[in-house]
């Protein structure tokens, strides 16, 4: 049973992600988890506001099914297969506690200081989550893909644009964690 409850190591997860990509290729699709956001916009009528959302979104319903599956997978894994705690490098956990008063590493899956429902009363937390989401959505469409579309699919297909995008992901992430976190938190 421990094998199920323990976190899966990278050398199990990475190959399984590659398998997901190959299965999608075999059914004629490309692995990517952000284009469904565009499909969702189109489905609720954003085509009235921009040409970008005027396309045959019904042909893209398959990626909404993948999303539904991902939701289901999250439910199954968290309910039946996990103790929902994440242990990280102890020095990093200590630093999170010392610098940002985030003390839930090792005790929760997401930092309760930011994500616990009762902490949503803090407007700063709402702003962090909302702005984070907006940047992810905007950036993914501007760059034409996200972690799955560029870092996995695109790089696997040896696409230079994907390499540029992934370098961008890391520039953005490093700037946020190392330069902006000390200001925000």
């Amino acid at each position, binding site marked *: 049973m421990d094998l199920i409850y323990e976190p899966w190591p990278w050398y199990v997860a990475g190959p399984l992600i590659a398998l997901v990509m190959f299965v999608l290729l075999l059914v004629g699709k490309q692995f990517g988890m952000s284009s469904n*956001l565009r499909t969702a916009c189109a489905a609720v009528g954003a085509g009235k506001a921009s040409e970008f959302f005027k396309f045959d979104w019904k042909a893209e319903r398959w990626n909404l099914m993948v999303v539904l599956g991902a939701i289901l*997978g*999250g439910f199954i*894994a968290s309910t039946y297969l996990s103790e929902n705690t994440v242990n990280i490098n102890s020095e990093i956990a200590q630093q999170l506690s010392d610098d940002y008063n985030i003390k839930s590493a090792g005790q929760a899956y997401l930092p309760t200081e930011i994500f616990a429902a009762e902490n*949503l009363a803090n407007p700063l937390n709402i702003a962090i989550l909302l702005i984070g989401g907006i940047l992810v959505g905007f950036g993914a*469409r501007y760059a034409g893909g996200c*972690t799955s579309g560029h870092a996995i699919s695109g790089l696997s297909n040896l696409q230079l644009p994907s390499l540029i995008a992934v370098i961008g992901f890391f520039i953005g992430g490093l700037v946020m964690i190392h330069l902006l976190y000390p200001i925000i938190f």
Partner: protein
Amino acid sequence: MRYITYLVIGTFFGIIMFKSEAASWFRIYEMFQFGSFHMYGIIGSALVLGVIGIQVIKRKNIKPLNGSEMSLQPKNKSVARYLIGGIIFGLGWALAGACPGPMYVLAGAGYISILIVIFGAVVGTFLYGLIKDRLPH
């Protein structure tokens, strides 16, 4: 029937994301602090197998099951859109601690707060659609 296939693929993907902790804010933070090999190992091993597999597909000219063409079109050439878009994405990835796949996984795991991130991501996508013609691509 085809929809069931995609539902199953998505479910499998969701379980992998959650169980590998790639959907955890802590792992994303740790990755950008270079505190563990874990996330690099996940992406790196997926990539090594991905590169090999796609080379095999191309050289053996393997077709999808329905006989159509593999979705492996080259991406449009540009630097600005990938670099600027990528940086904006990276800022959000590190701020919210989640990228698009894991957002849905976390919603399924019952984290109500992630719905704010998903709402933001839809808004961000919509904003891009509104102003895309005025951005360098």
